[in-house]
């Protein structure tokens, strides 16, 4: 564990994530600007907003995936556990602490077992018994164990869409992440599976912080403690989810979006 940076602002030390004046550009095009927000430990932080409003770009800044995109540049500060990730040198160690679930399930071309065992293996756990234990625990927590326990050795990509998405959640959990980021996870998942995953998230919240980017406004309402609304590359507003959904908003646009009167 790295110690918090000396120059971290006082509040950064108490927050899981603190974002200051974040701006993201692709080439010369600004994708997201003027974002200031903080995320508490063990909360589910919802982010809603239409397509192209900058939600995915925002997530990419937190685990520094911008590093892989040559045309993407960011300014501003992102504090994670009181450490400035914009200057983080060993990005692998940062990313190992942050689990990510992508919109379309990315079942790696590996067996079900190895999909979940990969992260522990990467961090040096190689004993079969340990791996077995981790795989079972993570699959159980992702509510997938019962369906796949007899086919751990078949390819992950042969599972159904909803199963694959739970597999990616199990895979993210196998990293024992401190922060879990889900990007529109329910886009390719049936409603029943979505509900199951939502129940899983409510449980996980006890152990980790969750950022939930969602295309379903009601999903944020069901799960998020606080919610931010992104629109056209700006964070229009953020607040307690119950307040926003009770109509206590500062911007008419937020209300319009929440109530589906948009575009």
């Amino acid at each position: 564990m790295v110690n918090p940076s000396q120059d971290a602002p006082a509040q950064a030390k108490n927050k899981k994530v603190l974002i200051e004046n974040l701006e993201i550009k692709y080439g010369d095009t600004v994708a997201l600007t003027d974002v200031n927000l903080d995320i508490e430990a063990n909360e589910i932080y919802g982010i809603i907003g239409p397509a192209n409003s900058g939600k995915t770009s925002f997530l990419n800044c937190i685990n520094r995936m911008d590093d892989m995109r040559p045309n993407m540049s960011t300014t501003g500060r992102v504090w994670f556990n009181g450490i400035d990730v914009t200057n983080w040198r060993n990005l692998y160690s940062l990313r190992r602490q942050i689990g990510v679930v992508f919109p379309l399930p990315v079942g790696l071309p590996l067996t079900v077992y190895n999909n979940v065992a990969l992260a522990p293996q990467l961090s040096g756990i190689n004993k079969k018994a340990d791996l077995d234990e981790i795989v079972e625990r993570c699959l159980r927590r992702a509510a997938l164990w019962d369906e796949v326990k007899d086919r751990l050795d078949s390819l992950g990509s042969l599972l159904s869409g909803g199963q694959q998405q739970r597999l990616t959640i199990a895979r993210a959990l196998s990293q024992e992440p401190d922060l879990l980021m889900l990007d529109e996870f329910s886009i390719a998942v049936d409603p029943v599976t979505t509900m199951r995953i939502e129940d899983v998230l409510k449980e996980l919240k006890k152990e980790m912080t969750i950022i939930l980017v969602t295309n379903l406004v009601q999903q944020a309402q069901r799960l998020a403690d606080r919610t931010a609304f992104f629109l056209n590359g700006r964070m229009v507003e953020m607040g307690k989810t119950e307040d926003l959904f009770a109509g206590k908003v500062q911007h008419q646009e937020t209300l319009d979006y929440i109530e589906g009167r948009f575009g």
Partner: protein
Amino acid sequence: MTGRAVNNTIQTDDSPDLDWYIDRIVQVLMFIGGISAIVLIIGIFIFVTREGISFIFNDLDFAEFFASPRWRPTSEWRATYGILALIVGTASITGLAMMIAIPFSLGSAIFISEFATGKYKEYLKVLVELLAAIPSVVWGFIGLTIMNPLIIQIFNVPVGLNVLNAGLILGLMAAPIITSIAEDALKAVPDGFREAAEAMGATKWQVIYKVVLPAAKNGLLGAVLLGVGRGFGETMAVLMASGHAINLPENIFDSVRALTATIAAELGETAVGSVHYQSLFTIGIFLFLITFMINLTADLVVRGVKKG
């Protein structure tokens, strides 16, 4: 409403219209194109078989053909037709070539696909294509005039036209082809896999080793097999660099002779229809079957046909 005007031409009966005829014609043309390739292959096979068939049925002694290292078709006293030495020649050259080419090719394919970026990557790909386009006689020339004296000098051996020379040349020839196909296989791995693995904190090398290579393994194996097929079929460079001596090699400094080179060198000097002529065609059939099998395996492997 202006939008309706477009729909006036919609046809309500089932009589063929222009689009229907064009579609039919294109289908027929495609069929002819596809079928002619197959017909051509079968035609070649029939031709080669017809020229060699009488030898196979009348003069061929299977045991001698495959087990004797004596290839003496022109002997006045007693002609023998043993291709063992030629098989061993071809196999040793190809084997050495693959030992050289496979690590280099896979290495450069990984580098081009996973590490090189932007312009640099494009330049490298063009360079590989250029290397693949060098005619084989030029490679043979290099073997003859550059490698030959080098090998004599460095290893202090009497002749530099041998398994080592031909293997090196063939390896250099096959490498760009394997590289290019292997790179295609790596490129076909979806970026989502790489991103997912990197998001887990995998290092570049871990991503390649744990995710990209397993995902591309069929394509990579196919690339290698096509390289092997290329090695078996290559003629000119091998003829020039191998020494072309009928010999069961004991080490890589012995001269050998390849199956293909034998056909190329002798066919012009035989009387059409003679036993010697027919025996060369029999070698041709043998080569045809081997390369066909290698390519078929490569094809099945690329398409991912598995055992169970």
